[in-house]
C-alpha cells in the first residue's frame, strides 16, 4: 500500500472514531469540533476544483450561501422537514455550479479568479435584495438544540467528502482532472472533454459545500448574507487546502485541523485584531515556505525533510 493511501485511511479511521466523542465532551468542544468538520468539508470540496482541476475558485462560498438559503427557505417558507431542505440545498448548489460554471470555467488565471470573485460578491448583493429571502435582515430557521446531531451530520459530510475524493482520485474522471490541471490542451488532445469534466468537478464541489451550508443554517438557526457569503470562508478553504496539500486526498482536512487549532489557541488568548494579524502572517509564511503543503512531509516520513530540495524549490519560485 502506498504511504499516502495508508495515511488517508488512518485519518479516516480517526474521524470515524471521533463519532464516539460528543457524549464525553462539554458543549464548547462539541461546537469547536463541529466547526472544524464544517471547515474541513469546505476545504475538501474546494480541493476538487482548486486542487485536482487546478481552477482556484473564489466563488465556492456562493454555494455555501445558496445552500444555507435554500435550506432556510425550504424550512421557513415551505415548512419542509430538514432532510428535504438539505437535499434541496445540494441540488440548488450543484445546479448553480452547472449554470455558472459552463461559461466561467472556460476562463483561466486571473480572469477565472476575478469572475468567481464577482459571482460571490454579486450573489451576496443579489440575495440581500430579495424579499422572499428576508432581504438583508436574514432568515430564521426552526431551532434545534440537539448539538450532537449537527456534530454527527458535519462529521458525516466530511467523511463522505473524503471518501468521494479518494474514489475520484482512482477513476478516469480523477485522472482527467489532474491532466486538465497539468496541461489542458494536452488533455483535450488525449480525448478528454475538458468542459464537461470541469463543470462536473465544480458541481460535486458545490454539492458538498451546499450540504455544509444547509447544515450550518439549521445549526445556527439564523443566517444573513454577510455571514453565509463571507469571502473569508472562501479564503480559509483555499489556505487550509494549500497548507495540507492541494490535490491530495486528506490534505485539506489536515490543513483545516492545523489552522483551526491555531485559531482556537489564538482565540483563547484574546479576540482582537492581533488575532487576524497573526493569522495573516501565518498565511504569508505558508504560501512562501510550503507551496506544496504538508502532505509530502506527512506521508514521506523523515526522508521528505530535505533542506536542499526545499531551498531549490524556494529559489525556483523567487525572482
Amino acid at each position, binding site marked *: 500500500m502506498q504511504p499516502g493511501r495508508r495515511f488517508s485511511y488512518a485519518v479516516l479511521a480517526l474521524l470515524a472514531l471521533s463519532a464516539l466523542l460528543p457524549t464525553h465532551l462539554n458543549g464548547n468542544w462539541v461546537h469547536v469540533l463541529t466547526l472544524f468538520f464544517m471547515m474541513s468539508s469546505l476545504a475538501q470540496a474546494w480541493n476538487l476544483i482548486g486542487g485536482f482541476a487546478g481552477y482556484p475558485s473564489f466563488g465556492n462560498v456562493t454555494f455555501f450561501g445558496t445552500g444555507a438559503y435554500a435550506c432556510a427557505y425550504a424550512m421557513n417558507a415551505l415548512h419542509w422537514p430538514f432532510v428535504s431542505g438539505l437535499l434541496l440545498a445540494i441540488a440548488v448548489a450543484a445546479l448553480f455550479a452547472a449554470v455558472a460554471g459552463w461559461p466561467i470555467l472556460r476562463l483561466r488565471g486571473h480572469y477565472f479568479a476575478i469572475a468567481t470573485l464577482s459571482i460571490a460578491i454579486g450573489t451576496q448583493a443579489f440575495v440581500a435584495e430579495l424579499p422572499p429571502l428576508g432581504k438583508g435582515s436574514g432568515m430564521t430557521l426552526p431551532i434545534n438544540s440537539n448539538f450532537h446531531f449537527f456534530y454527527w451530520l458535519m462529521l458525516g459530510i466530511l467523511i463522505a467528502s473524503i471518501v468521494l475524493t479518494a474514489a475520484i482520485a482512482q477513476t478516469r474522471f480523477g485522472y482527467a482532472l489532474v491532466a486538465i490541471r497539468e496541461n489542458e490542451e494536452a488533455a483535450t488532445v488525449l480525448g478528454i472533454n475538458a468542459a464537461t469534466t470541469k463543470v462536473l468537478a465544480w458541481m460535486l464541489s458545490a454539492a458538498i459545500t451546499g450540504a455544509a451550508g444547509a447544515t450550518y443554517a439549521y445549526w445556527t438557526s439564523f443566517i444573513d448574507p454577510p455571514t453565509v457569503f463571507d469571502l473569508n470562508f472562501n479564503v480559509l478553504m483555499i489556505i487550509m487546502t494549500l497548507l495540507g496539500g492541494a490535490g491530495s486526498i486528506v490534505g485539506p482536512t489536515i490543513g483545516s485541523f492545523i489552522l483551526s487549532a491555531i485559531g482556537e489557541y489564538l482565540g483563547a488568548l484574546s479576540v482582537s485584531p492581533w488575532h487576524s494579524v497573526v493569522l495573516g502572517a501565518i*498565511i504569508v509564511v505558508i504560501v512562501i515556505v510550503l507551496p506544496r503543503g504538508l502532505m509530502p512531509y506527512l506521508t514521506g516520513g523523515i526522508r521528505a525533510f530535505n533542506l536542499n530540495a526545499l531551498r531549490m524549490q524556494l529559489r525556483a519560485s523567487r525572482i
Partner: protein
Amino acid sequence: MNVINIAHGAFIMLGAYISYWLFVGPMHLDPFLSIPLSMIVLFVLAYLIQRFIVNQVIRAPMLATFLLTFALSIVIANLAQVYWTSDIRSITTNYSGSSIEFGPITIPWIRLWTLIIAVALTFALQAFMTRSKIGRAIRATSMDVDAARLSGVSVAHIYALTLGIGGALAAAAGSLVSLSYAITPTMGDSFVVRAFVVSVLGGLGNVTGALIGGLVYGVIEAFGALFFGEGYKDVVALVVLLLVILFRPYGLVGRATA
C-alpha cells in the same frame, strides 16, 4: 505585471489615514497638498513588500501571489485597527461644502479637483510607461521575464518598482477619497473590487483604458441604481463585469492580441 494585488485596498486606506493624520496634526496640511507625501510613503512600503515578500513567490502559480497579497491586506488592515481603532473618521475642510454651478449642474469643488488630479495622474503614468526607460523595462518584464533579464533589466527591482508605483497611485487615491468618504481601517475593501472591475473593463495592462473603464463603471453603477434600485447597483456592475470578461477579455477599448 500579472500580479493581482489584493492589498491595493489596504494601500488606499493607508493613504487616506496619512492625509487624515497630516490634516489633524500640528501642520494642518491640506489633503490635496499631502498627496505627494502619502505617495512617497506608500511607494517605499509597496516597494519593500514586493521586493522582500511577493518576489519570493512570483514564479509560483498565480494563486500564490493572490493569497499572499490577501494575507498582507489582512495584516495591514488589522494593524491599522490596532493603532487607529475602528472609529470612523472624516476630514472637513473649509471648502468641503462649496461647489461650482454650470447651469442646472452642481459639481462639488472637491469632486472636480479629484477628477482633474486622477486624469493628470493617469496621463503621467501613461507617459511614464511609454516614454521612460523604466516604463519600457516594466513592459518588457511583463511580456517576458527571462528575455528582459537577459537584456540587462534587473527584474527583481522592476517588479518592486511596479508595485511601488501602484502603491503610490493607491495612496493618491486614498488621499483624494479621504475628502469625500469616511476613513476606516476596512474602507479599502470596497475599492479593491471596484478597482478590479474598472481595470478589467479598461483592459488589464492598459493605462488609459482604465480611465474609460472607470467612466463606464460609474455610469453603469448610477444607471443600475436608477433602474433597479440602489441595492442592485453592485449586482448590475458585476454582471457587466462578467459579460466583459466572457466576451471582451481584453477590455472594452482594447484589441485582441495573440
